[in-house]
């Protein structure tokens, strides 16, 4: 019995908990990408840097609050700074839409032109973030670090395997669930949400029935900025903030959105978890796990690892390829790419 418990704890500590936290962060990012794709009909390459941009403001506000001695006790001060960061990010994103994307909307430009324009926006944001906060690692997490520490868990339960849960991991999961519930309620129950879905399904029909396209576009950008800032802040709290890593997040986030089905919010969430779990589960060595679960003396000599961690990034690419080849609309029947 203890062996089975130990095996379960082992798997939770090194696979389940990290994968759930990473998956939630990817899902929140992929939701923003999928919303833009569904409603504005282009792949927004600037999303990773929008995350960095919003997070940068959260960090600046956090530092300001910390300098004034304001904090949330065991919770990170960044939560308090989050609304301010979101506001700044919304402002910037709306200005970008006004100055860049609106022009192409008027011209009814092809999606590929939007994509290239978003690459330009990406570089500008990239540069702005580096200019303001610098290219280095920034730590802004404070408060308690752990809900349960591995060592304390061992002493508490008497098991030989420890489990640790970080505050940032718990926070990520709770926030992600709340945000997703709020987003689905908004899209399905409110008038604006319904008009957004109508606009996404059939633009001409939506315009004929009197939906204000400018409002739909504006709300979409606001939602994308909110999601990006929350996802970026959670990621920064859990790991650390570095502009370059946010730029690199673009790839797994797009993979998540495409695997789930571009334009489908449920798909984006599922896709986020599929990518996170496969990256970690396929590269995890099951040696110790089998030693616990199998009969005595079954401990394997090898590591029982399907793929070396060096190939971690290949995993998301392979999933992406398989999905594009066999089910181009993604798991949840979004738009084909």
């Amino acid at each position: 019995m203890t062996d089975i418990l130990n095996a379960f704890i082992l798997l939770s500590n090194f696979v389940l908990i990290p994968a759930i936290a990473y998956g939630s962060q990817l899902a929140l990012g992929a939701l923003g990408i999928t919303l833009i794709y569904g409603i504005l009909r282009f792949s927004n390459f600037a999303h990773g840097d929008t995350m960095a941009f919003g997070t940068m403001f959260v960090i600046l506000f956090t530092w300001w609050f910390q300098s004034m001695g304001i904090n949330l006790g065991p919770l990170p001060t960044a939560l308090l700074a989050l609304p301010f960061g979101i506001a700044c990010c919304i402002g910037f994103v709306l200005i970008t839409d006004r100055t860049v994307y609106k022009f192409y909307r008027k011209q009814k430009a092809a999606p590929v032109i939007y994509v290239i324009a978003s690459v330009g926006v990406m570089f500008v944001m990239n540069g702005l973030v580096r200019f303001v906060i610098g290219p280095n690692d920034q730590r802004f997490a404070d408060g308690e670090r752990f809900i349960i520490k591995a060592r304390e868990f061992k002493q508490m339960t008497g098991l030989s395997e420890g489990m640790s849960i970080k505050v940032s991991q718990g926070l990520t999961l709770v926030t992600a669930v709340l945000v997703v519930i709020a987003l689905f309620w908004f899209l399905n129950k409110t008038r604006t949400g319904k008009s957004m879905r109508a606009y996404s399904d059939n633009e001409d029909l939506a315009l004929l029935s009197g939906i204000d396209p400018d409002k739909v576009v504006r709300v979409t950008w606001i939602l994308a900025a909110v999601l990006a800032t929350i996802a970026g802040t959670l990621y920064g709290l859990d790991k650390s903030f570095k502009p370059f890593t946010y730029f690199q997040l673009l790839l797994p986030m797009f993979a998540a959105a495409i695997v789930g089905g571009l334009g489908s919010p449920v798909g984006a969430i599922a896709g986020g978890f599929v990518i996170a779990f496969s990256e970690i589960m396929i590269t995890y060595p099951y040696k110790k796990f089998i030693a616990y679960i199998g009969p005595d003396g079954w401990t394997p000599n090898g590591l029982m690892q399907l793929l070396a961690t060096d190939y971690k990034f290949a995993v998301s690419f392979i999933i992406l390829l398989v999905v594009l080849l066999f089910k181009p609309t993604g798991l949840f029947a979004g738009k084909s790419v």
Partner: protein
Amino acid sequence: MRKLLLTSVAVLGTTASLAMADDVKIGVFLGFTGPIESLVAQMAPGAEAAIAEVSASGKFMGGNTVSAVRADTTCVDAAAATAAAERLITSDKVSGIVGGDCSGVTTATLTNVAMPNGMVMISPSATSPALSTIEDNGLFFRTAPSDARQGVVMTEIIMDRGIKEVALTYTNNDYGKGLADAFATAYEAAGGTITINTSHEDGKADYSAEVGALAAAGGEVLVVAGYLDQGGKGIIQGALDTGAFDTFVLPDGMVGDALPAAIGSDLDGSFGQAPGTDSPGAGKLAEMADGFDATSPFSAESYDAAALILLAMQAANSSAPADYKGKVFDVANAPGEKILPGELGKALDILASGGEIDYVGASNVELIGAGESAGNYREIEIKDKAVSTVGYR
């Protein structure tokens, strides 16, 4: 006729005196731009200090002067480095090169430029083990130890603490791979077991998969051959958070006060090594250093590289690389009078009178094998959130 004779004599006289005051040029070939530009800012003045010291002594090859010519390796761009080295040799006409700095560009310029032109290169900072076995026609030396040596030192440090089983992760580049291979060979030869030997990429934020794999493989400590502000830090943070490892072994790329400052007291008790010596030479150079920091990494090695080239020239009484390349070992190693920084004038006198010297310099130079420093390391341990030195090897 008489007039003609006079002019000929005069012309002969001037050429003779020109030859007497011949200016020998030494290339300072380092990465003034690129990833290690901050280190080079302290390395180049180190090399130039030795050159200025020799030149000012007035004893170099019968009173010749020496001057330095800078060129940029960029540290990463082999094509740019090759072109810069070509320029040093063909247009600046240098007689020896202090450099290059990073292992990759050093290998490229050695094979493409220095060997075809028969030019001597002494690198102060290229540490790749591959440079020990490269074909060099006796033209390449380094005052930096090979990472193969660091692998052995690290093995000794770990074995002395009675640790027989380690997990190993390295940053996926020439430095990380070279050091990891060197360490794995030495540690297994000494009877240790490496449970897993895996790479990590720098610049990622999520290392849970890597930490999961390292933890599953197990081991008493985790050896992290990475960079302290990159993936190495991420791995250590992840391993501490999940309780996978408590103690870490930190090679030179991981040693710095920024790491314990970022991670906190959990890192206390971790240990490792970085190049360093307690020889009196290092302190002496630091004292006489004017306008640069001689304790910065590879600054002392740069001084020694320049000094070795000039002393070898003096011993051969020629600035032609083919003549003095065979003398580098003679001046660097025993027997002979020990020479510390600031004593280059004395060394020149001894060599001019046919005596022998044993150049110790600022980094305790002792050339071994194919012409590389035997290597002196500082054993460190993290105590109270700071790096402290516990001994020298």
